[in-house]
């Protein structure tokens, strides 16, 4: 049975999507006379919440891993999983650091490097992959500080407690006190995508699927782009 009722549609989304998704949801609500509630948290926390039966209709994860976990437990509606949007890894430095910095140079330069914890923060995972690929990961040992989220990387760089940080292009837009020194080559790591899926909770499924489709629409993608996200080629 698939009962669509009038309760608000509940979206759970990775917190790095806070601003962009709020805007998209606003528009969607206006255009479709819908009522949407979004729960923001880290992808891992959301996955746990869903596993424990939180009333979630749509899950937008910051990486494939937690979506896989949900899918393994048969918690998502078949065939509803799509990659919505992508992102790019960047190297940031404090605003007033005007010198040219490339990732490859890091081994010759002093200073700490802030990275999301590779085990738990998606941006950190991709950073680790990239740095390993160019044989820098081991060298960086002792200079890296792991963080629990991207915002923390920004705070360290902003306050100049570290000299370099790796985050997403969309995150760099948050702060006007850091500067993107370099966009990291996309071939150095697995593709950065935000997968989404309808949660199989026997409720609101049609409405959820409709919203998911909207996320892939031209209009929604425009908004994503405005916030620094990128299109994904392969949506499945």
């Amino acid at each position, binding site marked *: 049975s698939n009962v669509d009722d009038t309760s608000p549609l509940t979206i759970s989304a990775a917190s790095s999507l806070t601003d962009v998704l709020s805007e998209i949801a606003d528009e969607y609500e206006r255009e479709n006379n819908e009522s949407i509630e979004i729960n923001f948290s880290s992808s891992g926390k959301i996955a746990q919440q869903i596993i*424990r*039966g*939180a009333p979630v209709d749509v899950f937008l994860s910051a990486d494939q891993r937690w979506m896989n976990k949900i899918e393994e437990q048969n918690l998502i509606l078949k065939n509803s999983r799509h990659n919505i949007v992508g992102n790019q890894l960047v190297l940031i430095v404090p605003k007033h650091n005007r010198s040219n910095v490339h990732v490859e140079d890091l081994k010759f330069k002093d200073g700490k490097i802030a990275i999301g914890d590779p085990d738990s923060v998606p941006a950190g995972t991709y950073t680790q992959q990239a740095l390993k690929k160019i044989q820098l990961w081991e060298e960086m040992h002792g200079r890296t500080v792991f963080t629990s989220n991207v915002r923390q990387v920004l705070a360290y760089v902003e306050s100049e407690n570290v000299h370099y940080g790796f985050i997403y292009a969309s995150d760099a837009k948050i702060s006007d006190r850091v500067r993107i020194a370099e966009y990291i080559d996309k071939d150095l790591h697995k593709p950065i995508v935000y997968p989404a899926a309808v949660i199989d909770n026997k409720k609101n499924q049609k409405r959820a699927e409709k919203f998911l489709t909207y996320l892939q629409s031209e209009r929604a993608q425009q908004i994503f782009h405005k916030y620094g996200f990128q299109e994904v080629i392969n949506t499945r």
Partner: protein
Amino acid sequence: MMHSPFWLSLKISTIATLIVFILGIILARIISRKIFPGKSLIESILLLPLVLPPTVIGFGLLYIFGQKGWIGSLLMDWFGIRIVFSWIGAVLAAIVVSFPLMYQSATAAFSNYDQNIENAALTMGASKVKVFFTISLPLAWPGLLAGLVLTFARALGEFGATLMIAGYIPGVTETLPLAIYFAVESGHMKEAKIWVLVLLILGLSSILWLNWWTRRNMLTTSKE
């Protein structure tokens, strides 16, 4: 308006504080006056929520009070109450994290006055309930007030467990600490600063008010 982080935080902390205050006093009073084996152990266990990071507590709450948790499913089936993703979850989180503060303060408070004064009241025919409200409670008041203030402040500042069990749903479970966190997270520093200011002012004025109110209503107890 009533869903603004300000009112939500005030509502949640007030409800949680009342519950913790009453519960803490009752438990402290019962346990502190009894002597039984394992008492120290029980008292220490009651303090454990303080040792765990709030996120971990949130995790535990999610397991127990989630839709699939044993209490959570009972509450849902029997009363239709949903804890997860609702402000009730935030109240629950605040209760759990602040309870140890109240319990510890109350225990110290009840052990800190001359118990012969309670005996005197009993000889005058006062029931145990009357003695509790007219003698024990006022005499323990400085310590209880200390606990009350700690509890309210802690409830107001609760973040980690709340995020886990109540989620961050703007307009529904967006308490001041969550609003601050997500404003910072999204780089809205001005907004964050405003919310921090609001939180500080709310905290400060509540504490001042609590102190003032109880001083006016409870006592001019100079010590003997």
